[in-house]
């Protein structure tokens, strides 16, 4: 028996009634707001619920979402396969194979650029490390998923096809579908 409990609290009833008053207050206040909402007063909200698939939380512009590879004007990746992101990645989820670039002024280009999103921790270090501003995490895409681990590996082509999110933070490109693999 704790010593700090006085007789009124030991008797339960008063505390129970004050608790019931609190919850009943919430109930009737929210019920009134719900009724006002259904009668046409649309800014009256009785619940803090966000009805997810139809309605979305506002996203911060700094939110780190699915990666994309930035394209040059001719559509080839801006990436020069310097391996900085692969080196800095704490989850070791980036895999790059370098290749010669046809343009002699550009040193290299990635032949393969795979990100294993099943391993990625979305720390954003790859974006920070990149000297060419070739990888960004601003697509606004959050809901990528797959039925097996191998389908979580996104290839260079998939990452190149993505657009940055619009000004409202919504994704402008569809969620890339991983190519069908024989597992």
């Amino acid at each position, binding site marked *: 028996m704790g010593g700090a409990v006085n007789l009124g609290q030991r008797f339960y009833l008063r505390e*129970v009634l004050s*608790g019931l008053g609190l919850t009943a207050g*919430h109930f009737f206040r*929210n019920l009134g707001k719900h009724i006002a909402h259904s009668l046409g007063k649309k800014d009256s909200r009785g619940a*803090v*619920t966000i009805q997810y698939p139809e309605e979305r939380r506002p996203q911060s512009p700094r939110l780190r979402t699915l990666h994309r590879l930035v394209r040059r004007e001719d559509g080839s990746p801006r990436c020069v396969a310097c391996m900085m992101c692969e080196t800095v990645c704490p989850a070791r989820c980036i895999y790059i194979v370098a290749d010669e670039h046809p343009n002699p002024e550009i040193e290299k280009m990635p032949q393969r650029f795979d990100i294993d999103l099943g391993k990625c921790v979305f720390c954003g270090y790859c974006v920070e490390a990149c000297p060419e501003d070739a990888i960004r995490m601003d697509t606004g895409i959050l809901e990528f998923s797959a039925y097996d681990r191998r389908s979580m590996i996104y290839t260079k082509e998939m990452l190149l096809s993505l657009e940055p999110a619009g000004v409202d933070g919504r994704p402008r490109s569809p969620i890339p579908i991983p190519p069908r693999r024989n597992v």
Partner: protein
Amino acid sequence: MSVVADLGIAFGRVAFVMMFVLNTAAILGWVERKQSAIMQDRIGANRASIFGIRAMGLFHPLADTLKMLTKEDFRPAGADKTLFSLAPFVSVLFALVAFASIPFGDVLHIGDRAIPLQAVTLNVGILYVFAMLSLGVYGVMMAGWSSGNNFALLGGQRAAALMITAEIAIGASVMGVIMVYGSLNMMDIARAQGQLLWGWLPKWGIVTQPLAFILFVTAGIAATKRIPFDFPEGESEIIGYNVEYSGMKFGMFLMTDMVETTVLAGLSTALFLGGWQVPYLLADGFHFPWGSELLLSPLTVTLLQVGSFVTKVAVMIFILMLIRWTLPRFRYDQAMRLGWLGLFPLSILNIVLTGAVLLAWGAR
């Protein structure tokens, strides 16, 4: 011909009560979800739809039932086959029949026939309801014992201990009501609550027996085994008597809880909230204490009475749900302390006080 009519009337009375209890219990699943959601600033389940019509989540009880019916009906290898299958039926049966003697309206006169608006007219109605509610615990104990699971057995024992605690407090707290109205017949008790105290205050049980009302509701919630007295089940951590049940058998235990809540609401309405009484409404219409009158036809009066009963039950269910979604669970020892050192002595005190007041009232 008159035998057929009598049978039809008897059947109609039983059917009304059965429909009322079963449908209320089914809708309670929706009420529970929505009320708790609104209390907690949420929206609540609203996704089940038929042809795109969501109807504020009203189809969720239907979807629940379908889910329960189509799930695997698993029976553990160590379980007692007969008792394991019997337990949920025993549990839900006694909860369902308990409502039978609760009146939902006054005696209705059609022609020369007098029809009491309750499923069964018993002159020991209160004892019948308590007997049925107490028998309900056999289903729970059966479930706990026959599962072949020690946790389930312990849950069943907790349920039995809680039931004894609750039943004693319920019985003792209702004694005061029986003393005031001088009858065990629920119809007589409901009718006696239509009298007026000092010419203006309806003589409802909550007016004459306020302490008994609080004790009765507290012990009644314990008897329904719902939060804050849900340690027989304790589904989130200590697990209870229904841990081995799945599919519709589990659903029947859930239904038992809902039906018992309805019965508790009906019982407290009949005993403490005036039953089917509307204030100042007599058999021929309203007679207000300031002298004005409003005469109504007998059928209107009956409809008003039944409507009044249903409304009071709904309000009582709202309060029970409010309690269920506000208070945290009592520990086993806390509930035992509350039952044996709180509710029971207070009920005895209430009996003594009621007796003293009645004696003084009669002597005056």
